[in-house]
């Protein structure tokens, strides 16, 4: 499989498409890594297994997207994942943040899965194969993550315990960074002009808010008014990514030529 998109001849569009795929892959690898930190310490065995499975799937999806960008030469996808400095990562900042507590991880999962589902829907319509088919396939897998997140969110926010206040605090903390999902660079307009991307970031954000609002309101939660907290899509990250990156790449760095 050659590095895609082999069919895009315009180098500007090619590079914009690559940037889009890199956002997807970097989002998946960072959230996958954070989810995996719940392995062994989840609130109950079922949730522990669930979060670990979700982590496994997100890391698997990251690998597939890195392969789309890199081609499938030996170790190419690994190098993309492990041999870039944090400043070259294009993930949204929300996904690199430490877990803080279960309620934060669940809020983040709910916000991200909704976004991810919609983004895979857009990618499925990008007209570039095999990325479009891959996105459609992954969308079917991600649905279960959203169901898990919604069930836990409702459970945590149920009165009379102090759960709802804690979930609200987590939502207040996560929201500005979640808006960073929709941070744009020059790539977005290029992709729209080339007919690969069919929705502006503004419309994506409206669709996303329209989807998360009913869930949050059903849980008695209030969407905070906050400004977007930006940076991730341009490689401007928090120190949390550097810390996570050091940990995530430690084994790979010990022997970059090793084959597993």
């Amino acid at each position, binding site marked *: 499989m050659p590095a895609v998109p082999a069919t895009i001849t315009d180098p500007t569009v090619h590079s914009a498409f690559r940037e889009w795929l890199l956002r997807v892959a970097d989002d998946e690898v960072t959230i996958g890594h954070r989810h995996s930190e719940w392995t062994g310490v989840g609130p109950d065995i079922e949730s522990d297994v*669930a979060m670990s499975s979700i982590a496994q799937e997100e890391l*698997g999806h990251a690998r597939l997207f890195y392969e789309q960008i890199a081609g499938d030469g030996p170790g190419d996808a690994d190098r993309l994942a492990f041999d870039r400095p944090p400043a070259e990562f294009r993930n949204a900042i929300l996904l690199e943040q430490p877990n803080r507590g279960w309620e934060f991880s669940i809020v983040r999962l709910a916000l991200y899965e909704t976004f991810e589902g919609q983004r895979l829907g857009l990618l499925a319509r990008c007209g570039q194969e095999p990325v479009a*088919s891959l996105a459609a*396939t992954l969308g079917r*897998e991600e649905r279960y993550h959203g169901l898990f997140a919604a069930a836990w969110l409702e459970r945590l926010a149920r009165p009379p315990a102090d759960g709802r206040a804690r979930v609200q605090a987590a939502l207040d903390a996560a929201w500005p960074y979640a808006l960073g999902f929709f941070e744009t660079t020059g790539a977005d307009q290029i992709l729209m002009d080339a007919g690969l991307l069919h929705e502006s970031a503004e419309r994506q954000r409206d669709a996303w808010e329209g989807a998360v609002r009913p869930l949050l309101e059903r849980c008695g939660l209030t969407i905070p008014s906050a400004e977007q907290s930006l940076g991730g899509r341009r490689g401007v990250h928090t120190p949390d990514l550097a810390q996570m990156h050091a940990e995530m790449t430690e084994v790979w760095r010990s022997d970059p030529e090793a084959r597993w």
Partner: protein
Amino acid sequence: MSIAHASLEQAAWDVLRSVEDPELPIAITDLGLVRDVRVDAESRVNVRLVPTWTACPALAVIRGRIREGLLAIPGVRDVSVEYTYDEPWTLARMTDRGREQLAAHGLAVPSCRFAEPPVCPYCGSHDVEIESLFGPTLCRSTYVCRHCRNPFERFKPPAES
């Protein structure tokens, strides 16, 4: 001496029928993973597979087992095994024999949609409760039967679109 083209393809299918999924006790042909097999004039075999779950760790193991089995066929010059995504894996790809084998293993299998009511594989009761969508592998969820009080697992396909 190499065997003829048609029998090479036949031999390739025989190998595929003998490869088991490491996480489910059935052949990959009964699971419906094999999309097509091509043998070219140079006796190179290409196998295309449809993964159930794209992040399944068994995929690499299956690829290795297929490769090893096909390379052992006299006359096969080269083998390539690839996963494709342009056709989604659905429950319709699983054979009746595959379903029976999973049921005998105590694993319930929906007939066509995950959303249909689950049935206890031990007593046949519909009075069951989901314990977790995420079971011991990516393709299984866990339940408890309220009638016979057995815990059981159910095959979990990717969500239907």
